[in-house]
């Protein structure tokens, strides 16, 4: 450990390298498009329960959506070369975004049910569209948090 005088420079170099790694975390167009379609499918749920004929199962759509989401995640990992650990709401930096996603989902779904119940279909469609936009904005915010954590070293100096 002779080059102690150069050690602060090594730490600075590591910051630059981490910033380079964080810059790889960019969402490709197909991931954004796929996420928007999946979100739209989720928010179309309240319409399906009312307008689809009785007895039509919705679970195959749900299973297909989960499979597509997993496939997209695998593709994103392949493209970026970075596999992130699974994080729930206990992960502090991502908590505000996670809570916002949940709140938007619950609020939009309930509002849709209410509006469809009162035959305000156009308003329900508008709410669903706004919810998709909000969820996509949350996705971008979550990505920004991830990039910031990768730059900062996720707790390690």
């Amino acid at each position: 450990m002779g080059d102690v005088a150069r050690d602060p420079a090594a730490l600075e170099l590591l910051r630059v390298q981490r910033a380079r790694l964080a810059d790889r975390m960019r969402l490709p167009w197909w991931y954004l498009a796929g996420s928007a379609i999946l979100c739209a499918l989720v928010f179309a749920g309240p319409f399906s329960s009312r307008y689809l004929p009785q007895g039509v199962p919705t679970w195959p759509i749900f299973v297909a959506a989960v499979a597509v989401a997993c496939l997209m995640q695998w593709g994103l990992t392949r493209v970026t070369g970075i596999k992130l650990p699974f994080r729930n709401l206990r992960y502090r930096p991502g908590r505000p975004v996670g809570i916002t996603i949940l709140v938007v989902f619950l609020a939009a779904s309930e509002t849709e049910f209410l509006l469809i119940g009162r035959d305000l279909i156009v308003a329900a469609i508008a709410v669903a569209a706004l919810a998709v936009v909000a969820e996509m904005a949350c996705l971008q915010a979550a990505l920004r948090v991830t990039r910031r954590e990768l730059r900062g070293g996720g707790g390690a100096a």
Partner: protein
Amino acid sequence: MTAKPDPLIHPITRLSICGLLAAGADWVEFAALRDAAGISDSVLSKQSRVLEDAGYVEVRKGAVGRRPRTWFRLTAEGRQAVEGHLAWLAQLEEAFSASTRDVRQARPLPGDRDQPRRVLPPLLGSS
């Protein structure tokens, strides 16, 4: 976590590899690690083998089609060592910047008469 230097990850290339793996990702792919660290394929292969032999890095090899893919991640032991080493480096950086600050304060800029002199100039030729 105790701040202590680790001779195995002190060389700059190994420090880069370990520091990048400790950034928050679970697994990092060979090309991503190589590009971020700015090193060649052969250097990454060689240094990662040293780290793998020491039990600091876990390596997973696979293939997508015909292309081989290698993924790296830190083991628990490796993460502990890296965090300790980075904390030691951060302490060193703090001490280094503090000493630089002291030197700047001790040597005022030419013409800066308001700056108090903390270190007296050597009294050459005084009897």
